[in-house]
């Protein structure tokens, strides 16, 4: 089995993508030491393809293609459980939203939610609080 060694250094953090994530989230990615507490408490974790601590790791490594391709960045619902439990005070939800913002601005997945595709019957039953919050988080 081939062994791959990945090294994290400030070089990755200087990539344009990672610098933008850090700036928009106002977070220092290297503060995370991968304890996994964010993923342990995440109510959305069972529905994610990669876990919150893995999102931070990919960001630390500057692996933006993998990050932007993950569905987990759209599954996070900003409940802030990770943020209040992080022993290093990393605001994980802010990092994830930062990645979402960049995805929506990249043109690759401009709008994650197309309201027109939601069945009319579902739309009619939804309270405005649901529609507005979904559009604010999932569309540019």
């Amino acid at each position: 089995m081939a062994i791959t060694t990945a090294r994290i250094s400030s070089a990755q953090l200087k990539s344009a993508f990672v610098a933008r994530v850090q700036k928009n989230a106002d977070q220092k990615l290297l503060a995370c030491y991968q304890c996994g507490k964010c993923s342990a408490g995440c109510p959305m974790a069972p529905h994610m393809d990669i876990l919150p601590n893995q999102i931070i790791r990919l960001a630390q490594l500057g692996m933006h293609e993998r990050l932007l391709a993950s569905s987990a960045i759209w599954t996070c619902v900003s409940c802030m459980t990770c943020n209040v439990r992080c022993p290093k005070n990393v605001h994980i939800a802010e990092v994830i939203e930062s990645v979402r913002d960049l995805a929506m601005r990249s043109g690759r997945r401009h709008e994650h939610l197309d309201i027109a595709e939601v069945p009319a019957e579902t739309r009619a039953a939804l309270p405005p609080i649901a529609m507005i919050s979904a559009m604010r988080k999932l569309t540019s």
Partner: protein
Amino acid sequence: MKLIYYPGCTLKNHARNFDVSTVSSMAKLDVEVEELDRWNCCGTVHALGATNVMNRIAPVTNLVRVKEKQASEVMTTCAMCYNTLKRANLDVQKRAAALDSINKFMYLDDVDYHGDVAVHHLLEYLRDRIGFDKLAAKVKKPLAGLKVACYYGCLLVRPKEVAFDDVENPTVMEDLVKALGGTPVPFAQKTECCGAYHTVNNAEIVADRTNKIMSGAAEQQADLAMVSCPLCAFNLDFKQPDARRLNPELQPMPVLYFTQLMALAFGCDEESLRFDLHHVDPKPALAARGLI
């Protein structure tokens, strides 16, 4: 002085029961609430970007409207409105340049904003300004024997900067239930997310969350779940049929706003309760305890 009240969008349609029970029960507490003039959507969710200015305009506009009333504080009952207004306020207090941009953008308004309106959630106001002892003295029909699972969800207690109670084990709702004569049950899922806006296009996530949360309430033999957020109420109440597809043993359980339980205990009339707006009818559970 009247207490300025910000209802928010959903309290004027799907959650009218939250609105009317708030106004009626506050009248019983001798607090005159006045709905904010010309209020607009709070934005519902706080945009987390540290450089974001545009999404602060909607909440800050509401705070400007409060200042136009020569008031310095505003009360809201919706957990999402509370969270969004409070966080926008804290954000512009810290970011002078963002606040300056917003004031310039809103040049047609006579009042500039300086981060100087206090945002309160009604539960916080009841505890700190009225006091649960005084509130208990207004109870005409104690909720005797009623077992209540108090559900906080995310936005009353997270992030830490806006929490008005312990982030992991808040008790303000339980203290309110006790003051009303009811019995709060231990509830492990009380601060776990309901899935929120995934209800729009990820129904399976909300079904899973509703099943876990309502199963937790059922394990404690709760008669009902009590909430402070119209989106939590929608997911936990109206999405119980979806949850039951995952777990056929899940029995229907009503979901009520804390203000409805106050209105009930204070002896407000039926129009203040609006039980017709629920998916799971609260009447059988309340009748079983002799409360209606």
